[in-house]
């Protein structure tokens, strides 16, 4: 059984290309500078449609987390940590914290992105404690 792989589309392709290259990217509005994730065809702040991508530091803090002890399928070996990460640059994203079984984790802890090969074409951004 395989893990759930992201169905990449034209709008998100630069994000996943970045992951392949070992950088985390978020979408930036050229007009107002707003940063957003997930990527969209317009800026949610100013409604501008000129958007590009910037590399972010990959550092962030834990906004929340849970230790999943009953996994969603056999491809996910429990326990595993699902977390919401606030990137230092602003946007929030869901990810895993891969170097923790949950012991001692707390909201507010600092984390940094890492990349795991999940298929020949997918490098998944995951996080490790700093």
């Amino acid at each position, binding site marked *: 059984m395989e*893990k*759930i*792989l*992201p*169905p*990449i*589309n034209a709008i*998100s392709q630069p994000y996943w290309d970045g992951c392949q290259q070992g950088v985390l990217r978020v979408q930036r509005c050229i007009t107002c500078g707003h940063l957003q*994730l*997930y990527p969209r065809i317009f800026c949610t702040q100013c409604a501008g449609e000129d958007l590009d991508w910037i590399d972010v530091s990959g550092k962030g803090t834990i*906004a*929340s*987390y*849970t*230790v*999943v*002890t*009953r*996994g*969603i*399928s056999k*491809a*996910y070996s429990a326990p*595993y940590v*699902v*977390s*919401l990460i606030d990137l230092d640059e602003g946007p*929030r*994203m*869901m*990810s*895993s914290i891969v170097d923790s079984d*949950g012991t001692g984790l*707390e*909201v*507010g802890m600092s984390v940094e992105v890492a990349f795991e090969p*999940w298929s020949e074409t997918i490098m*998944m951004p995951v996080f490790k404690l700093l």
Partner: protein
Amino acid sequence: MTTLRGKVAIVGAADTEVGIVPNIGATDLCVRAALSAMRDAGINKDQIDGLITCDSMAEPIMYHAEAIAEYLQIFPRYCMSVGTGGGTTFSIMHHAASAIATGMADTILIAMADSLRSGLTREQAMLMQSSTGHPQFEQPYGPTVPAYYALIGQAHAAKYGTTAEHLASVAVACRKHAALNPTAQMREPITVEDVITSRMIADPLHLLDCSLVSDGGSAVILTSAERAKDFAQRPVYMLGVGEGHGHEHISQAQSLTTSAAVESGQRAYQMAGLTAADMDFAQLYDCFTPTVIVELEDLGFCAKGEGGPFAASGAIELGGSLPINTHGGMLSHCHPGNPGSMFALTESVFQLRGSVAPERQVKGAEVAMVHAQGGIMSSHTSLILGNEVN
């Protein structure tokens, strides 16, 4: 702008058998609920000119409401199905009331059922429900439905100090009420200790912090307040209704600890001209215990951050200042997926008619808050029901 306050009433309400109901599919169960509600209202099917249903996961039908109308051999002039549950279930009450007020239909049947327990494998039920996550940016990380809600529970604990015992007190209250309800799926009383020592599913949620997986169906019949007086049952009026829609994906929520129940509640209270203090009981969406804590706060039953201590005080039990989920809720009565919140609605109708068994009846109940949310605390609808229009 005209208000919907007091314009429509629920004149029929019924549940099917719930829990483990094998040997009957979701479509048949939906029709069984519909027929029971018509019987309760004392009408025959030809008097229904509007139909709203919710699609089933176990037996999905593309044109669900049309299929149910065809099965019943009714030919409504207003017919619509929705695909999701929770808050959506109650937002269709909003739509139905508007349809009656504007003359699109006179008497609307709302019926839904599903067989998550007998019609799907455990894995299927889990995967279908977790597909609420973003396909690219959430689902690959393997969040289960409990995991999504655990993120809310954990954030609430970190911000306000909500404890496992606080969460457990919600499950204990619901079970206590289910023990008094012969139709409930789980009736064996439990303690806080039982909850916090039950198997961890997604920290901080233990098994008994999670709602059930059930089969079941439920239906109500809505008509105008004027017409309602001619029906067999004491009408239960919609005094207020409000919606709030904050996000779909939890990673996009503006807040993990405050929900759009704030807006849906305010809108409903404003229409009704009532406040939280006026409510004799409340039915709060309890797919997982933290949702009840957040809803108690966001609907104004206690201060923000105080939901845990409020629940643990016993206030939410029958006999307390605000009994909640008097049928046992989805934690203990039943949770067949999308139709889950319907049972809170029918229970509220029975409570406001005063027709519940004496040990479960909220004494002198006149007005109630009935709230549901869908997604991951995403879309909220608050209903205020009452047995008089003053």
